[in-house]
């Protein structure tokens, strides 16, 4: 019984945070990288989120899914106005395809690169919505909750991003042909 209590104490103590971060660091960084499209920004976003989580670890660790909780912090940090201001973001009107298809049988790989590069040109909220929808496989209701918007708005973010991607990919495909 004492061992169980000790284990429970360890779970909620300082060591718990270290262990949890060691286990989840890769997943969090991957998610942040997909979200931001930049390794440095991803590391910053994860570090900031973990700092916030550390300060209130008692509450975070008691959440149903601490990983989702921290990912939400990463998303919030990424789309926050001050962070966008710090990045001096200047969105472009139309996505520009920067990787061209090659004819050596690696078309699928080239297309993945193209999609990745095109996603990098999307506005932050559209990109976040796309990442949450297709990487995290969340529902529109969950995306809306994370992005602090209506479900219809979340759906609109994803559909606009898809329309832009499709248009650009179609145009580039026609040019390649």
């Amino acid at each position: 019984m004492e061992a169980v209590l000790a284990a429970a104490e360890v779970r909620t103590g300082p060591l718990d945070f270290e262990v949890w971060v060691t286990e989840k660091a890769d997943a969090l960084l991957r998610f942040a990288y997909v979200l931001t499209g930049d390794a440095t920004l991803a590391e910053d976003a994860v570090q900031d989120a973990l700092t916030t989580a550390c300060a209130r670890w008692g509450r975070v660790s008691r959440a149903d899914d601490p990983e989702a909780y921290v990912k939400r912090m990463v998303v919030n940090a990424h789309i926050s106005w001050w962070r966008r201001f710090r990045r001096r973001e200047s969105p472009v009107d139309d996505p520009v395809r920067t990787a061209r298809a090659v004819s050596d049988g690696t078309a699928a790989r080239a297309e993945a690169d193209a999609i990745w590069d095109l996603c990098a040109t999307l506005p932050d909220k559209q990109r976040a919505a796309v990442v949450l929808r297709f990487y995290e496989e969340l529902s529109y209701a969950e995306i809306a909750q994370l992005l602090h918007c209506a479900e219809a708005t979340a759906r609109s973010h994803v559909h606009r991003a898809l329309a832009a991607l499709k248009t650009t990919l179609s145009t580039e495909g026609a040019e390649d042909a």
Partner: protein
Amino acid sequence: MPEQHDPEQELGPKITSAFQDHAGAQGMQNTGLAREARRRVHRRRQTMSMAAGAVLVVAAVGGVWGLVGDGSPVATSHSDSASEGKAAAPEQPSQGVAPNSERDKAGCPVQHPIQQAAAPNDVPTGTGLDLNTQVTGLRACRYSTGQGGLLGQQEFDAAVAQQVVDAIKVLPERNPDLPVFKCAPQVAKPSEAITLRFTTAAGTKEIWVVYDGCTSAGFFTGTHVYGLYSAPLKLFMTGSVRPSGGTYLSALKDW
């Protein structure tokens, strides 16, 4: 009917694949995140503690300043009168000046009608001293007629009070040696004046002393006017009640 393609179904798997490919390809620093998070939290808390400490120190300094505010350069009637009195004339122990303990019993009123009087002889009815009345004490109160309030005060014993009354009641209605001014209304009003508050059997009775401005000067009881001469002035213009100057005092010379 043209075939409808759902962009989500068409592009979704490709996007998922692209994300998963790239998510696995990056080589980011994944160690030391927890330690750095703890360090930042520690620093943040330290900063917060220091900020809270600074706020407490500021509040404490403000509180102490408020407590000792009487001695501060903030314009209060007592502090101003003390400092201004010293500037006008060094305070010297004068014969007939009551000891401090007695002086502090009943001070001059902070606000007095003399500050707002339209004319020098506007002593409120019933408060002017009949110079034939026996007096048992005197408190001289010096007031600014502007924003300065009470500039100084001095208390005298019965002997000096009686000497002041005796010196005033023999004076003519005006001093012919004083100049007659023609001046603009805005400078006609005296910048300061003194109220002599005598203790009598019927209560406190007053004589107003006007020595500045350019309309008139002298001792005013509300019913009588006595010319401004230096003999009575010498008896009570001491310490903080002694002005640094005045239009008519300059002409008196020996006050």
